[in-house]
Each structure stands twice: as structure tokens, then as C-alpha cells.
């Protein structure tokens, strides 16, 4: 059975801290791994990773995929209260997307 596991499930930090969110997967037919940020209802797209070792970066957020370890990390540096959200990892299995349970990040002032 295809599985996507995120850790930690929740995390509380203070502004300015750096956080690392983890996503591991056990799937067949891996195509890519995607990260989303979910604040209210709809997840907003952050990154899509298809190749190992190539970091994708957007401002204070960055992510990298390790296909050998079947995992990915999402880093957020100099966190701000606006980063508080649920961060979802999803694995694209050809015509299907399997989501992890998410990491709820709370950034305190």
C-alpha cells in the first residue's frame, strides 16, 4: 500500500527560528513529490521535486528530494507568524496523488 508519512505532526516555534519538515514515502510508480501550504481551505502550491539532490528555493523556503532515502525535507528559515499553516507533502503516482497527514506549524511572535 502506498504511504506518505510526514513528521513532525505539529511544531511550535518562535519568529526567527529555522524549521525542517520531513516527508518520507513508500510508493510504487513514483513520479514526483510536491509540497503545499494550507492556511484556510485550499492548499497553495510550493514546490514540485522530481530529481534527487537538486534544491528548489523560493525566498525563505527551500526543499530537496532524496530518492535513495525516499524522502524530502522542506526548510523554512527566519520564520514569521505568516508561515503558520499546515504543510502538506504529496507524492504523484502517475494519475494519482497521495497526501501525507501534514505538519501543523505554529510560529509565535
Amino acid at each position: 500500500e502506498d504511504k506518505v508519512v510526514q513528521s513532525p505532526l505539529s511544531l511550535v516555534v518562535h519568529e526567527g527560528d529555522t524549521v525542517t519538515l520531513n516527508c518520507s514515502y513508500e510508493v510504487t510508480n513514483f513520479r514526483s513529490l510536491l509540497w503545499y501550504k494550507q492556511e484556510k481551505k485550499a492548499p497553495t502550491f510550493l514546490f514540485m521535486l522530481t530529481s534527487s539532490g537538486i534544491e528548489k528555493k523560493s525566498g525563505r523556503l527551500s526543499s530537496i528530494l532524496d530518492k535513495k532515502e525516499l524522502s524530502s525535507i522542506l526548510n523554512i528559515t527566519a520564520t514569521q507568524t505568516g508561515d503558520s499553516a499546515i504543510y502538506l507533502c504529496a507524492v504523484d503516482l502517475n494519475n494519482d496523488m497521495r497526501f501525507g497527514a501534514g505538519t501543523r506549524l505554529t510560529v509565535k511572535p
Partner: protein
Amino acid sequence: SAVISQKPSRDICQRGTSLTIQCQVDSQVTMMFWYRQQPGQSLTLIATANQGSEATYESGFVIDKFPISRPNLTFSTLTVSNMSPEDSSIYLCSERTSGIGGEQFFGPGTRLTVL
């Protein structure tokens, strides 16, 4: 990415009734999907909606309960039929403009509460 809109954004419904959620995309998209997110849980795929063919449902979801239409490449509807409180969820429409292997984007969601 395409701009995706959903209607209604939220609704409160009575048990036993049905609600149809509309999803409109501002450009033609190959693949459209419907997801459900129950309170405190992650997203679960209900079905893939392909234009011109029957929707493909995931295990645990059936057409009688969640009929889907996809009349063209920019529009889809999901109906939640004979609702019960367990159907209270956020329902999300999603698309992949570039097809299989492309990035996937979500609509703003419909928050459904069934009393």
C-alpha cells in the same frame, strides 16, 4: 497556473438533501480532480473527472453518492447526495493544466456542514 473558482464557498445543509458544487477553471485543463478533507485530516481523492468520459472513482467512493459531471475542459461539478453529518468536509477541486506529471493546483474549496 490556471485560476480555479468554486461555488458555493460554504453551505450548511440538512440531512438527506443534496448539494452540487461547481468548479470553473479559466483555461482548458486536461485533468480535474475532486478531493475531500474531513476535519483534522489530510486530503483524500474522491475521483478524477475526465472530459467526455465517466469519472474514475477511488476506493470507498461511488457514483451514486458523488455524481460528477465534466461537460467541457473548463468546468466540472460534484454532487454530494443524500447527505449525512459524516459528509461535513471541505471539498476541493483541483487541476493539472499540463496533464500527467505536471504541477497540480487547487481551487479555494467548499466548506460543507451537514446538520
